[in-house]
């Protein structure tokens, strides 16, 4: 296992994008960063720059206006990345399934690795999703090294 891969899993940098959610999941993500749940102990930092991020954390359903922004952000992230979707509406459309401007889940726009259900998803679930996502990140990195 090469050093890059090891470091990436030990300290993943997260890009958080609100893709039309109700804020419920977003404040739970922030609550997960706050002292009671404290995901920073896993080395996870929330940053704003897609070019430095390993994990894309998306909340909310994709709609006709913002799917381009979401796609742009995904494309700008360097390879070996995972996408974690937080919340029911991001996974399938949820309560917004019949809203005229909603395309549906985030997986209609970008490939998704981990779905975290819940409306709003609890911080424990989000942490659980993170751990699953990091396993996938390690697998992806390993495949990339072997393929080289």
């Amino acid at each position, binding site marked *: 296992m090469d050093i890059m891969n090891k470091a990436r899993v030990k300290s993943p940098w997260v890009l958080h994008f609100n893709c039309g959610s109700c*804020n419920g999941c977003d404040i739970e993500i922030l609550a997960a960063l706050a002292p009671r749940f404290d995901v920073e102990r896993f080395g996870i930092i929330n940053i704003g720059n897609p070019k430095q991020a390993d994990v894309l954390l998306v909340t909310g359903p994709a709609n006709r206006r913002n799917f381009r922004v979401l796609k742009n952000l995904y494309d700008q992230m360097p390879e070996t990345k995972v996408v974690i979707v937080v919340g029911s509406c991001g996974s399938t459309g949820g309560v917004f399934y019949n*809203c*005229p401007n909603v395309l549906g889940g985030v997986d209609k726009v970008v490939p998704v690795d981990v779905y975290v259900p819940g409306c709003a998803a609890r911080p424990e679930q989000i942490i659980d999703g993170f751990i699953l996502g990091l396993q996938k990140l390690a697998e992806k990195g390993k495949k990339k090294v072997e393929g080289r």
Partner: protein
Amino acid sequence: MNEGTVVNVNTVIPFGPQHPVLPEPVQLRFKFEGERIVDVVPNIGYVHRAVERACELNDYKRNVTLCERICGICNFMHAMAYCESIEMITDTEVPERAKYLRTIWSELGRLQSHLLWLGLFVDSIGFESLFMHLWRDREIVLRLNEKTAGHRIQLSTCTIGGVKKDMDDRLIAEYRSSLAELKKRMDNLAPVFVKDRGVQARLVGKGILPKNKTSLLGAVGPTVRGSGIPQDMRTLGYEAYSYLDFKPVVYDMEDAYSRMLVRIGEIYQSIDLINRALNQMPNGPILQKNTVFPRGTAITRIEQPRGELFYYVAGNGTNKLERCRIRTPTLANIPALVTMLVDHEVADIPPVLLSVDPCVACTER
């Protein structure tokens, strides 16, 4: 070009839709002259889901769930405003105890919203340790939510004709002790906001909204209460507010600092209101089932943490609504925000922007 001519270069800097300061996608295009902002063009619609149209497609009872998901921060108040409008046009009389419970939970929502906002606000001026303190204390309110309804954010207790959950004596005692604890912690933290010179240097005189301009710009909520205008929908006395001797918190410095003081005052006020409501709450039923379909039109105005929330509902005697119009406070505050930001420098954008407490999910629906 002649030599020696100073060229005044106008720079346009887009802020968003994805930006670390705001967790929500909104774009503001800033036009700069040197370091000074001369113009701001807001560009919204990234969170637009067409909820108003979906309200016409769904059964009117299911809309309570949908309206609750318009905004995760003030979810209970959205559901409450929708239920109040439907109750008006179906002649449903809400029991007294349900009115008190609704008041208590909407104040609880205001508490967690203001604590959340204060945290984000001080984080925007670089005071990260205070952010952590506030978000730790906010967990007290979320734990109360969890004990009441089994969920931290979406209470989902409001329904047409009353509420779905009741409070027993044990829970009421829990509320009292938790709120006393929260008040103690706020007593520790509030002086930092009010007296800290670093905070004052970043906020005093920033984002000025003159008192005589507020009605012209149509601003609402703590934004105008920070400019000395006692405009608060709770004075209309909806639900149980008429029994609680409510008076709005007003400061008149007209700047971002003043708006922060209003919200700190409202945290204490909400704790008081909840305690008073818990003392006065009568016993009795909590739900009055409604049996008729909505017919006619109704208007509801309630006070959200960010200002006035307006619901207009039109029913035609079937199980689908004809129209559901929602006007949210942040939309009303955008013209005021644009005026506030002009003449500031780049570093002042985050605190001034956050001083109106923008909630984009509400705005665009």
